[in-house]
């Protein structure tokens, strides 16, 4: 930063304080514009908190904002509706990302080991699903699982296998599994792409020397591939858990709408419908603040090392 000064006239030695200010000012034009936008995110958290402690009910016309203190938070913490949503979100965040990481890793291993020649084609195929809008993905799977006889799967069950049709969206566990299917459909290819790149970046010489030493392929995997990919797997898990905990709105919105009877009522979906459909803005914003706090604590606690490495 100081290199420019060399060509100019000899610098007047100002006080160190002045220099500091000058240095800060030369950085400011680079940083300030984006932080104006990023500040919105902070401001929205503050205003969210403000709404959650001040605003009780919008359903009564003409009612003024009243200070309600922590009432909304107590409702969110104790009400069975929200506890249900928390449990479902935790369930998905513990099942869905590990499953897609495991399956993506397995498919990547299979294809890099046995189908090396077809790898470019498979890569091209797997690039597309993670890039398609979640809304469209959800519709695609809705088509397959439609409850009535027009659903492809039900049609297949009935006309080819002679089995009774299943009303997928009326059965709690089926509805949950379908959501899992939808997320895996875009999750697995994503993990596959990451893992193929990682596997291909492992130096081939390691495998060659292992082969010379007579290691079996299981041992090669256990002692070369797995240890080298361990940091990546941990990072993916940590990132996957938090996005699984709070994301996943689109599929629920299109496919199950939280049903049957709140069995797929994810946190994100609950936060949306509680405010925008049932008009309990106070509780919804309280939930949003809680979610943000969870993310902040999680990011600082669990992802600090990950960031330290990259930033």
């Amino acid at each position, binding site marked *: 930063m100081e290199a420019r000064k060399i060509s100019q006239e000899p610098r007047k030695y100002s006080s160190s304080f002045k220099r500091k200010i000058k240095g800060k000012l030369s950085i400011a034009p680079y940083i300030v514009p*984006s932080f104006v936008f990023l500040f*919105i995110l902070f401001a929205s958290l503050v205003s969210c908190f403000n709404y959650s402690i001040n605003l009780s009910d919008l359903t009564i016309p003409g009612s003024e904002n009243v200070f309600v203190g922590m009432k909304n938070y107590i409702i969110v913490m104790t009400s069975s509706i929200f506890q249900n949503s928390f449990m479902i979100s935790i369930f998905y965040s513990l099942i869905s990302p590990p499953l897609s990481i495991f399956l993506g890793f397995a498919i990547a291993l299979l*294809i890099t080991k046995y189908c090396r020649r077809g790898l470019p084609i498979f890569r091209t195929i797997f690039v597309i699903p993670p890039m398609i809008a979640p809304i469209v993905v959800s519709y695609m799977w809705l*088509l397959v699982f439609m409850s009535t006889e027009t659903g492809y799967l039900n049609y297949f069950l009935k006309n080819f296998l002679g089995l009774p049709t299943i009303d997928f969206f009326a059965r709690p566990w089926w509805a949950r599994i379908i959501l899992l299917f939808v997320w895996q459909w875009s999750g697995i290819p994503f993990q596959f792409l990451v893992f193929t790149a990682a596997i291909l970046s492992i130096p081939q010489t390691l495998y060659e020397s292992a*082969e010379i030493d007579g290691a079996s392929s299981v041992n090669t995997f256990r002692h070369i591939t797995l240890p080298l990919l361990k940091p990546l797997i941990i990072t993916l898990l940590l990132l996957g858990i938090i996005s699984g905990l709070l994301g996943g709105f689109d599929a629920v919105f299109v496919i199950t709408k939280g049903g049957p009877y709140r069995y797929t009522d994810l946190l994100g979906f609950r936060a949306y419908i509680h405010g925008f459909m049932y008009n309990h803005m106070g509780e919804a914003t309280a939930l*949003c603040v809680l979610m943000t706090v969870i993310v902040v604590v999680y990011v600082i606690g669990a992802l600090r090392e990950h960031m330290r490495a990259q930033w």
Partner: protein
Amino acid sequence: MKRSKITTIIAYIVAILIALYFVGPIIGIFIMSIKPVAIVALPIFIFTPTAVNYASLFYYEISKGGVVSTKFAPSMLNSIIISTVTTLSVVGLSALTSYAFSRFRFRGRFEAGVYIFICYSVPSIAFLYPIFYFVNSTGLYDTYLGAVFVQTALGLPWTLWMLKSFFDGIPKELEESGMIDGCSRFGAFTRIVIPLSAPGLAVVSIFTFLFVWNLFLPMLVITGVSTKPLVVFLSEYRTQYDVQWGPLAAGSIVSIIPTCIMALLIQKYIVAGLTLGAVKG
């Protein structure tokens, strides 16, 4: 180590079956989009293909001969406008800022990074209510400006993170030599760093475009009749009572065509972009 042919063949069969699972729904929805209206939702696979569903995206007939155009074309245009403008503003802003984060050392640098990462990780649902109030109270509801503003805020963190690592990969010495030759810091940035990181900028732009193109939830809330983007328009084909499969399938195909083209364009770089984390929900 020699593998028998049978293993390879079995492996290929398994891999192809897996690939079919991922291609199947796309093909299914494409087949659906070219079906005649009468059998559109039925799993019948013998029919003469028609473009009637694509036509019904744009207009529908009322009574005799009267034709009413739908909101599809305007919403497509909305999506294109919003995504393009947002991409430009996001990439422009974040190029500046991530350059600063990559080159300058200052106090609070890591903390700012943590803040950016938190902004990236917080799901957009958490910003929904404040953004909704903000957009309503400033009169930006249902305007392009509001949509671009909100999406820029949501898209920035990821881009900042990505571009910083691209800039880290460009040797400092190049700019230093430029500055010795009399270039200003900003001149070195625009004349040396930007051209060198052109591929990175392209990749990040495409990713941002896709992120904005696919972003649903905030758009559902802050856009109304006149700025509704494509995904929100598509989501309205499912009503409480039924799903209008024909136009929905056609619309989905139209909406994923640009996605697919862009995904294939940046295929080589996609992994670098994806490793940061799952696409934000």
